[in-house]
């Protein structure tokens, strides 16, 4: 283990880009995470992430641009989820249907592509070390938009997520708020997929929030902790990969490992602080 590896590697632009990209992705993934958990949308995250492969394939075929293809594809996917899965009970089935067809379509499109096919497949495992300056700029813009939208949407979205009936009665436009969130989720997940890979997006968009919920029930603190955990996982993963630069292990692997370790710590903390009232009262008689 040679710590000078990190500083040496960080002197290269590709490494700086990787770290900046990881940071931006972590912030927006951590931000949406608690809402993904509260709205039970883990499958939507997984589905939109995998479907970014289809968008990437389409982008390659049409304009030799996998990155923007994936981004535009995510908007199509979000619209499809919004239209087909408006009701929560139907949503997972709708995503399953879209996912099955979408992946098939992606491979179909790829079969027409005469160029370097694996570029679209790259998105399945992520390609953080090849982030261009242009991509960083796009990522920055997306992060600003996601943060701005979430700052506006936060309270009614939280209300609609935990208490949809009363939220609707109180005048929250629950359908609209939910639909906007699907778009935010799709864009965030697609960007994250390009860094940690489609298959591992869950470890930035869900695991940090799942861990954060074990520490606190305060909504803003939960969000803050989820972002901090996502940052530790993403940046920590990038730095670890620089530390072990000679090994063949992908950055995504470190990110998932750190993320899961944080979740385990959260489980431990959650178990320790478990319901002091229950002990005092000797249990709740009417808990069902």
């Amino acid at each position: 283990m040679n710590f000078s590896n990190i500083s040496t590697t960080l002197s290269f632009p590709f490494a700086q880009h990787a770290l900046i990209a990881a940071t931006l992705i972590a912030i927006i993934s951590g931000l949406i995470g608690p809402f993904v958990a509260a709205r039970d949308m883990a499958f939507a995250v997984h589905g939109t992430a995998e479907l970014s492969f289809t968008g990437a394939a389409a982008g390659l075929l049409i304009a030799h641009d996998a990155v923007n293809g994936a981004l535009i594809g995510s908007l199509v996917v979000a619209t499809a989820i919004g239209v087909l899965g408006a009701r929560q009970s139907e949503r997972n089935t709708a995503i399953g249907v879209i996912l099955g067809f979408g992946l098939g379509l992606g491979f179909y499109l790829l079969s027409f592509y005469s160029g370097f096919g694996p570029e679209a497949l790259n998105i399945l495992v992520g390609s953080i070390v090849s982030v261009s300056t242009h991509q960083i700029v796009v990522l920055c813009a997306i992060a600003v938009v996601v943060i701005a939208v979430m700052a506006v949407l936060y309270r009614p979205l939280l209300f609609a997520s935990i208490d949809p009936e009363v939220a609707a009665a109180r005048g929250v436009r629950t359908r609209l708020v939910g639909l906007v969130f699907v778009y935010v989720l799709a864009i965030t997940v697609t960007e994250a997929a390009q860094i940690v890979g489609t298959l591992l997006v869950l470890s930035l968009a869900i695991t940090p929030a799942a861990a954060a919920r074990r520490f606190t029930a305060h909504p803003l603190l939960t969000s803050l902790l989820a972002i901090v955990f996502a940052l530790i996982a993403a940046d920590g993963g990038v730095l670890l990969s620089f530390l072990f630069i000679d090994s063949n292990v992908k950055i995504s692997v470190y990110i998932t490992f750190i993320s899961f370790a944080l979740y385990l710590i959260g489980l431990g903390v959650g178990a320790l602080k478990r319901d002091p009232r229950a002990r005092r009262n000797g249990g709740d008689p009417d808990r069902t």
Partner: protein
Amino acid sequence: MSTAPIQLRDAVLDVGGRRLWDGLDLDIAAGEFVAVLGPNGAGKTSLLKVLLGLLPLTSGEVLVAGEPPRRGSDVVGYVPQQKGFDADLGARGRDLVAFGADGHRYGLPWSSKDVRRRVDAAIAAVGASAYADAPIGKLSGGEQQRLRIAQALISDPPVLLCDEPLLSLDLNHQRAVVELIDRRRRVTDTAVVMVTHEINPVLPLVDRVVYLVNGRWAVGTPDEVMTTERLSELYDTDIDVLRVRDRIIVVGAADSFVSEPGAIAGLSHDDHDHHHPRGHAS
């Protein structure tokens, strides 16, 4: 109070091509406690939705606090059907109550000083201060229901609508919740409409009963409505209404209006009521 907080004139509601109720005339006065009874699918919850402005009448007129009902109005407090929250939900009891005041506003969930003060007062008024900062999903059904009532009352509404607020609560918590609501309407003259399939927990306190069955309806005091003749007429079949001590037991033959065994007014909560005299030792 010159006009009643709730007025329904010749109200008709069709849902999914089916007429739920027809020609419903109902005035509910300030401070009045009205229970809405009837079999599943009779339009009890739909009545609340009409009063909340979530469902338009097919014909007729409805006024809440003198105006047509609209979503998000501060003149109506709403306690939805009791169902548990996820244990891990990222919110505390306090957050739930605050949503009643400002949850519909865009922005981050920072409440103003005024809202925070009202949240504290509303929580104290329902006796929930001890657990208001605990994760909402970790609270018992009775505790969650108190917080929901605090949430519904935080805007000091002249009308309180409750949809099965006693469901899955044991007898002690049922009584506590009913007494909470009853005290409120006496102190602040709030009109209370409570949808319930069990009349007995509210029987000593309700002023009137609205009984909805298959498009027909009856309104009156419990003594007027909860009779063998009246309910047989409503259900269009033989119904027996028994008075056993201070309880009303409705016994009917038709399965069509009973979705679960014993879910006739007065019978169902024995299923999960460990404190009931006839219940098994707990």
